[in-house]
């Protein structure tokens, strides 16, 4: 189920502009890794390269290697579609498909990969995924209603249910709580803690307390100035990053002196 990601010498470009420079990092299986850093430091861009979602942006390209348990995601003949079905993603703003019911939202990814699924298997998968996203009790009586009728926090958990329904190896989360209220945020954070029993979770967050609460390891990204590429400054156990960082800029950032 859960797989490890090794990134070596990764550079991301938008056209001629280098957005992220020379990242080397290993993301452990069954753990939560948080990416923190000031806005524009390339952490979201880097996150997107882990499932090749950056390719949606015209002109974006990558040099370097990303290995998922040893398989290079950027190898010859690797289809980004396959990559994305193995590495799920949850976005900043909840984005359930507005034209689909709650049930169909959960099944959306499964129906792509495996068109024929029996009614009972589908029911089981819907219940399992919604339970996995701590949403089942809230929506079990209205599975046929549109997903867009849920609250923001519920919609975000529906998106997590949709991501885990295809049983990915890794789940990427791009600031999943930035559009949510504190209570919904807490619900998502609890969920992240449970998810790491089965999945490799990578989360980008602007909220340092959140990184401290949910992650095992933390990576700090920074830029030297506008127009300069983002860099991975420091990567260590979360406790180390927050209490005893090696780099001066990490300490300044986590103690709130800048950013």
């Amino acid at each position, binding site marked *: 189920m859960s797989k490890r990601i090794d990134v070596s010498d990764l550079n991301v470009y938008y056209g001629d502009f280098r957005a992220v420079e020379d990242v080397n990092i290993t993301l452990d299986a069954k753990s939560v890794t948080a990416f923190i850093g000031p806005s524009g430091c390339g952490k979201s861009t880097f996150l997107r390269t882990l*499932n090749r*979602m950056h390719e*949606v942006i*015209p002109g974006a390209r990558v040099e370097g290697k990303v290995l998922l348990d040893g398989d290079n995601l950027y190898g010859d003949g690797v289809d980004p*579609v*396959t990559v*994305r*079905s*193995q590495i*799920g*993603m949850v*976005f900043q*703003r909840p*984005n*359930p*498909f*507005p*034209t*689909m*019911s709650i049930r169909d939202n959960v099944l*959306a*990814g499964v129906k*792509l*990969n495996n068109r024929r699924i029996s009614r009972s298997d589908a029911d089981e998968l819907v219940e399992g995924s919604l339970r996995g996203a701590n949403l089942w009790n809230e929506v079990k009586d209205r599975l046929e*209603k*549109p997903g*867009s*009728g849920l609250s923001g926090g519920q919609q975000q958990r529906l*998106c997590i249910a*949709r*991501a885990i329904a*295809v049983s990915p190896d890794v789940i990427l989360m791009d600031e999943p709580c930035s559009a949510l209220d504190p209570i919904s945020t807490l619900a998502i954070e609890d969920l992240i803690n449970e998810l790491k029993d089965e999945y490799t979770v990578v989360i980008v967050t602007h909220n340092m307390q959140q990184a401290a609460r949910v992650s095992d390891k933390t990576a700090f990204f920074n830029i030297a100035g506008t127009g300069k590429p983002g860099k991975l400054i420091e990567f260590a156990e979360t406790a180390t990053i927050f209490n005893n960082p090696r780099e001066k800029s990490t300490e300044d950032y986590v103690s709130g002196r800048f950013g």
Partner: protein
Amino acid sequence: MFSGAALGAGALIVAVLFAVALFLVVQALPTFSANPADITGGRGFFDYIFPIVVGTLIAATIALLIATPIGVAVALFTSHYAPRRLARGLGYVVDLLAAIPSVVYGAWGASYLASQLKVPYAWLAENFGWIPLFAGPASGTGKTILTAGIVLAVMVLPIIASLTREIFLQAPMLHQEAALALGATRWEMIRMAVLPFARGGIISAVMLGLGRALGETMAVALVLSSGPLIASLIRSGNQTIAAEIALDFPEAFGLRMHELIAAGLVLFLITLVVNMVARWIINRHKEFSGAN
């Protein structure tokens, strides 16, 4: 101030529409009270209007059956497949096509397309003549209702293509990314996140196209050699309301004029019903439109 202006504009539209409807009804009334024997054809208004209503619907249906799939495909290509520079060029060309006056299309249909279609029509009559729609003998000039339908299709195609393209471009990136992140191919993403979003817009675009096809006068008048209602699409015959009015109005007086205005009233009602049905289809799925 602004609300007053908006209210005024809204009221003006209703007033104009009402005035048009009132004019049509008042001017058409003598037709309905006239002696059936005095109506063209000699058997009352219904027998006069029915064939040209059907002819209008046939021509418009052919046009939409051809133009809708092609128009949507062109729009999808420009919005989601073509490289940006090609897409822009193609967009200009499509918008330009929409601006060509209908008489040009009519002249092209009559002088070029019709003669090109003579051979295919003869082939259809020979091989598929057992289907009433293609019953022979095929028209010797190619000026049939099918040719008129094809010309209308060419005319409404740019309308459908350019309107649906705008809708496709507005499909939220958020949901397109959601589909891609689940491992959807580009086509699967379009089916999941673009087409459902664009559904209402496609229907509106098709209805606007239908409006133009139903009301088109010049192209049909030039292309079709009209006649009584027949099932075959490849023989000369049939007539549409708009072309009938345009061809006969200059010489009409007295009852004949009232008759043609009554025909216009019928056309007005058809477009009204078509638009209401479209509105109903769009609203039926409101709960899932994403607007809530």
